[in-house]
């Protein structure tokens, strides 16, 4: 039984098809990054997995159960959007409230301590800084000791140190056996955390594989070299072997040759634009 199972799911909003026959399976203990531009269908997918919406077609399962059944969601944790915290409630009250929904929650003091929020327990959430709100949001997703956590843009708007601290918290949770499905605008974030990457655009899964394979599949390599004039050049090429062969054959002078895998951002841009041109050609 998978932690999350999505089978042949389609979801429309009026004329817009947000998800088009999407299938995705996340095993226990996996850390999966969900990647795609705005409006690609990531949030719709998360809302189906968290039982907020019903698919028009297909099956969604959370720990083998329908997530629309509240009982199925006792194993689920997710983050509220940072702007969505009830502004007049105190930090401790919000934690207690969310904790009250779960059978064996983490004691509030312990949780606040883990996320460096102990001093802020009596503060109203409206008075917290953006970083503090983000920390609280991620803390709320873990208060029920969930086995599956959905993180929608967990570190949006954080500075580097804040982001690193939250990444550590997510890694620790995952190291303890937790399953994580996370979306992010920061490709760096997915690259830093995820073992497996699912690329979605226009409601379709474009790629679903290990981080390396997704990078490999699009076959983009970055070739760096310094030419005779001493100028550092950068080439993004589909086949670096052929590129180098040609380079050598051509007799061009170069030094400091360096070949690297493309970043996720480059790989992803390649995937999406590839689909787009294919679509246009049809």
């Amino acid at each position: 039984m998978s932690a999350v199972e999505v089978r042949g799911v389609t979801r429309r909003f009026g004329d817009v098809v947000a998800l088009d026959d999407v299938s995705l399976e996340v095993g226990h203990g996996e850390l999966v990054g969900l990647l795609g531009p705005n409006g690609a269908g990531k949030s719709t997918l998360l809302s189906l997995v968290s039982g907020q919406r019903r698919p028009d077609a297909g099956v969604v399962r959370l720990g083998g159960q329908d997530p629309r059944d509240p009982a199925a969601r006792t194993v689920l944790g997710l983050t509220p959007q940072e702007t969505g915290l009830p502004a007049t409630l105190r930090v401790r009250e919000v934690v207690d409230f969310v904790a009250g929904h779960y059978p064996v929650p983490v004691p509030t003091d312990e949780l606040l301590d883990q996320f460096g929020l102990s001093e802020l327990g009596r503060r109203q959430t409206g008075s917290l800084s953006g970083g503090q709100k983000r920390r609280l949001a991620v803390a709320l997703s873990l208060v029920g000791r969930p086995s599956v956590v959905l993180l929608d843009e967990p570190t949006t708007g954080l500075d580097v140190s804040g982001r690193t601290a939250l990444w550590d918290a997510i890694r620790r949770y995952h190291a303890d056996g937790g399953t994580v499905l996370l979306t992010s605008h920061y490709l760096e974030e997915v690259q830093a955390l995820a073992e497996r990457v699912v690329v979605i655009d226009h409601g379709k899964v474009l790629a679903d594989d290990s981080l390396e394979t997704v990078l490999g599949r699009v076959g983009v390599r970055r070739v760096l070299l310094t030419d005779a004039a001493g100028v550092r050049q950068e080439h993004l090429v589909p086949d670096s072997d052929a590129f180098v062969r040609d380079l050598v054959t051509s007799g061009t002078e170069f030094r400091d040759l360096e070949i690297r895998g493309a970043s996720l951002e480059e790989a992803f841009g390649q995937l999406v634009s590839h689909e787009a041109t294919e679509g246009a050609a049809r």
Partner: protein
Amino acid sequence: MSETMTTNSTGATRRPVTDAPAGPDGGARTQPFLALTWLHLRYQFLETVRIPIAVLGNVLFPALSMFFFVVPQQGVAGNPLFATTAVAGLGLFAVCSASLFTYGLGVAEDRQLPFYPFLRSLPAGPGPQMVARVLNGGAFSLFGLLPLIIIGWLFTSATLTPGQLLAGIGTILAVSVPFVLLGMGIGYALSAKAALPVVQIILFPLAFAGGLFMPPQMFPGWLDAISQATPTRAGRDLLVQATTGAEAYTLALPVLAGWTILFAVLAVVAYRNDEGRRFR
């Protein structure tokens, strides 16, 4: 510091629970309904109380009206029947106002909060949240009634037997149902910005035409005819009947029932439309 690190690195406190408590069918279960309702009631109550002006307005306006318009008029305040009727009218106003504001504005505001979808994803059905909402609305309605009853008791000749008091509170809660439904209809149909003026535009004319501020016996004939078709007038007369024994007009109950059905339909339609619209 080292202690914290140890706790974190062993992960003892954050180990995910894979063996959640099993229900009879082997599946996990949510927390008990009553526990969840209590949790949501506490949460909603805190949220309401933290904006004291909303609570104060609800409590103060009927109480001040009592002091300005009823207590100084010896003809009303000194007459047990008139005084009791006046308290009943303002009491109903307090309840209408609390119902329309907490449900109309409250629901509209909640829907706009990004916290709302988060709430819906917690392991609890819609039941506890809705029951808590009704109880929270009821609690604040009773807050509005309390000063009225005390002022009526201390400063006017209004009299109630304990039986009449119970009948009055029972009737007022029953009469509040169509207003709760109307409030929900508004809350699910409109944004918070639009809901506020709409609630005000509906509340005050209805309260005036329904004779909650001044007795409908003072109305000219045409206004009285309109008045008898309003849910506020029907509710007021039923409440006056329960507290003083003065009989309501024959159509009061059918009129109130008719509005209740209409507002129920409105609330359901608004809720359904909202699902399609909100989930974009």
